């Protein structure tokens, strides 16, 4: 309850400050259509061959993990608790 009230107030404050910004509904320069169509193709392919789609998803997940590690290393430097040989 208390946390909710604090967070809700904070969000409404930010909303008030950013009220002048426009709302994004579609991506510019035709990217929206292109990305939408691409995802449609990808979903067709993923339904056809789930293992490859799963491998792709896990690769993306691992890349995200590496990005987090690199961010840690950027912030903490040699104190980052990671292997500096691989990351």
């Amino acid at each position, binding site marked *: 309850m208390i946390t909710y009230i604090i967070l809700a107030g904070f969000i*409404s404050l930010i*909303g008030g400050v950013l009220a002048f*910004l426009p709302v994004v509904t579609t991506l510019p320069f035709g990217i929206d259509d292109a990305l939408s169509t691409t995802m*449609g193709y990808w979903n067709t392919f993923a339904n056809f061959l789930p293992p490859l789609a799963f491998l792709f998803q896990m690769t993306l997940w*691992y890349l995200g993990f590496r990005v987090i590690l690199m961010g840690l290393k950027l912030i903490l430097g040699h104190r980052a608790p990671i292997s500096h040989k691989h990351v």
Partner: protein
Amino acid sequence: MGYEKTPKRVLFRPLVVKPRATKMISKKQLLAIVLLGLICVTKSVHAGSLIYAQPDGFSILNLENEGDHLVAFVTVPQNTMLNAGSLFVFTGGQAHCVSPATHYDLYLKLSDDPTFTGGSEVQTSTLQYTCGNGFQTNATTSVDFQMYVGTKYYLDINVAFADALSVNSASTTMASGWIFNNATSTEGTNYDLYRLEGIASSTSALSEQQTLDVGQYCNVLSGFSPQNCVLALFLVSGSQGGDLASALQNAVLTKVPFGYATRIVSLLSTTTTADIPSATLHLNGNVPSALQGTTTIMNTMDAINGATAILTTQIDDGSGHNLWDVTMPYFKKIVYLLLALLIIRDILGVEFISKNQFGTHGALSDTNSGDDSYRLKEYLYNHRR
């Protein structure tokens, strides 16, 4: 190899230490791996799966007859504070209705009162069950609930439903999963048709089900619960969390520039499919005369649809599984294992496969870059007099 090419003019060949294979795992790393393994095993014992190491929320401990109720005991593990989810009940096998072509109601009731007469009734669910042609194989219904630590819950499957059905246990084919056989009601009706499966994801629970009412738990005159009162005071409940997320979405995440990222994420998470366009090929020019001027249409979707039909053909063993249903769990476990090894390598720096095992000693500085003592020897060798 580089370290063997000692110039001939050197009278005394300096002592060249043959580079040993890089020590793969140090004691500290081994200890860390053992600890990590212990944590994983502990998690897996609790969660029932090494890979999905998240609290399942609850486990069904027992299924018994109590009076005229078929009761499943459900207890929440101590390390989860609050949980919610859905409990699904499937009828399995061939259950024939006593009175065909009649409608029956299947009731599910989850309560913390074993007699179902008092206590706080958690949730009930009703499924209208239609008998047809004397046989009905699968009826499914679910009950949504929320539950608290330390409280024992009871699931009541309404007896009217059990009376309406009887099962010849000899001809019953059970699917895999948690199955409780040969539960018998007091009416003497055999019904080994219950498959109880507990599903309670913590994340979905937090986002959907929980309601912590301060007025209910913090009222010292009635229903006072110190633990739940404190939780209700400080924790953000599921519905409140949803409100906050929605408010944040409207206030910030849909606006420029965050809105672009939101839109991209939204597009990436769509599940709609689009047919891959066909390619039309006009054959002209340097082609055999028989093909001159012909047009070929290559429709990729024909091939994909045909292959999909084969790949998703169900196995004829009654399970309704296809190739992917059978193989994907194993494939996923292998991939998860590889991911775990990669993560351990990235964090601990452990080489699970050493390059030296394949005899690539040539690039000394590369293969032994992590070995300072060898690097020193190499330096001394290169700067010898």
